[in-house]
């Protein structure tokens, strides 16, 4: 039994064509445009018992989100989030490249559930290859689906994939998050309430619509239980995207990418995620298994940090990049994140003041919860986890100024930025 469910039947060199896709997964039967309440109730129930949660990072129950949007009086519109704003994530692009029709199937199911008029697939403006592949997949389905699908190309930056930033883009062409005074609150664009779901989430809905929620969570003789896509990078010889059964040990998952040597820590979730110590390698990769180490699966990112680099310097690189990705709308994010990055850089290079870790923690307390979107809170989470997991390195820097590994090559996937060290 392999873990393949989303990537079942994929061909390593090309996209599954519509015919191949139907051969592997079977046809998808959906009610007509005018909808069918009995079908919708049953489908929502299957989503609920599956326990599927959002794969863009939030891991919020998909059924709850769908029911919330469906309960709004305003008409709905379905949005597939294929932005993949996390630099260390590749999984949505890989899924779209190999199994585009499963994503589109799920989008059609979700659109039918909320009575959407159309489906908008958001692909970053720097990801032409995936946009072309999806364009072709949509063209191949012409006449098959009830609801029209179109591609939009927001700017490829970190916060552009945030739900309200997508809505803002549809309305005004500006990929900037909007402030939401309370949650849940509907995300509205062009007069429609949006249901925004990540591409991997949609693909899973494509499976649940065929096989039901029970099958989805527990699998069968030839399929593993619930799977998830991970992107492994860092100190490994075979980085890439893997589909793994939830509950596989983190160590077995990292082994797929062939780690190179000693491991100092693992970054989980994303650049706004959490560092966990190598002791987490023995634990199951699942929400509860990783929560025991303070971690979160987030968007399925797994960055392996080699023991030959300085974890403080690596943390500083991420913090600086995230600070530069601030949309610059909110004071605490615009001014607070650069200061936080500066303090970590100072700690890495021994230019810090006394009690640098204390003042960093105080700064995280000042900034927490004060952005319009969750961007600063993600950076805060990442920095706090670094101070905790790399406490020994922090102490070394604190007392001996630096550790001698600061200048080592970085293991991080980051778009070009200024050399910090």
């Amino acid at each position: 039994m392999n873990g393949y469910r989303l990537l079942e039947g994929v061909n390593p060199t090309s996209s599954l064509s519509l015919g191949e896709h139907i051969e592997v997964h079977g046809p998808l039967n959906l009610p007509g445009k005018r909808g069918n309440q009995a079908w919708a109730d049953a489908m929502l129930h299957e989503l609920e018992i599956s326990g599927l949660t959002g794969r863009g990072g939030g891991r919020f129950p998909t059924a709850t989100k769908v029911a919330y949007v469906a309960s709004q009086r305003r008409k709905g519109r379905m949005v597939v989030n294929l932005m993949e704003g996390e630099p260390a994530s590749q999984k949505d692009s890989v899924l779209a490249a190999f199994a585009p029709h499963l994503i589109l199937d799920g989008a059609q199911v979700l659109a039918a559930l909320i009575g959407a008029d159309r489906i908008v697939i958001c692909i970053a403006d720097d990801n032409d290859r995936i946009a072309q592949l999806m364009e072709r997949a949509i063209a191949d389905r012409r006449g098959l689906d009830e609801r029209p699908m179109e591609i939009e190309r927001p700017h490829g930056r970190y916060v552009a994939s945030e739900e309200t930033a997508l809505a803002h883009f549809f309305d005004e062409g500006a990929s900037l998050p909007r402030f939401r005074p309370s949650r849940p609150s509907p995300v509205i664009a062009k007069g429609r309430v949006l249901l925004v779901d990540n591409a991997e989430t949609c693909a899973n809905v494509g499976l649940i619509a065929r096989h039901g929620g029970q099958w989805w969570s527990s699998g069968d003789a030839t399929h593993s239980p619930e799977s998830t896509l991970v992107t492994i990078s860092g100190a490994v010889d075979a980085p890439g995207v893997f589909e793994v059964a939830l509950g596989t040990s983190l160590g077995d998952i990292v082994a797929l990418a062939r780690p190179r040597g000693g491991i100092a820590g693992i970054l989980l979730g994303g650049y706004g995620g959490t560092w966990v110590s190598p002791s987490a390698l023995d634990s199951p990769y699942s929400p509860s298994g990783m929560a025991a180490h303070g971690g979160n699966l987030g968007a399925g990112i797994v960055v392996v940090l080699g023991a030959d680099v300085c974890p403080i310097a690596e943390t500083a690189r991420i913090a600086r990049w995230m600070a530069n990705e601030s949309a610059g709308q909110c004071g605490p994010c615009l001014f607070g994140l650069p200061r936080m990055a500066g303090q970590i850089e100072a700690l890495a290079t021994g230019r810090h003041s006394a009690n640098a870790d204390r003042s960093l923690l105080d700064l995280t307390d000042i900034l927490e919860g004060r952005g319009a979107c969750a961007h600063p809170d993600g950076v805060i989470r990442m920095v706090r986890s670094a101070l905790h997991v790399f406490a020994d390195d922090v102490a070394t820097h604190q007392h001996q100024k630096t550790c001698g590994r600061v200048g080592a090559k970085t293991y991080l996937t980051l778009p070009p930025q200024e050399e910090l060290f």
Partner: protein
Amino acid sequence: MAKRILTLIVDPIKCDAYGHCAEIAPEIIALDPWGYPIIRGQVAGAAKAHAEMAVRQCPRQALSIKASNVDVDRPVGSTRR
């Protein structure tokens, strides 16, 4: 147990750090190192009239008071450990 509380909310996109609000309602508004407001605690007691005045006088109309029901038995989460 659920309890109805009033919270002062800042729209961080609108707020331009004039710091006016912290002068009007110092009981629940402090300023961060850059002059942006940090809200501490709920809108209650003596702070209520001040909070309402701060809402009215914010030059950017960035403040509002929100009523919500909170589960007082459940602690609010933080990533601090």
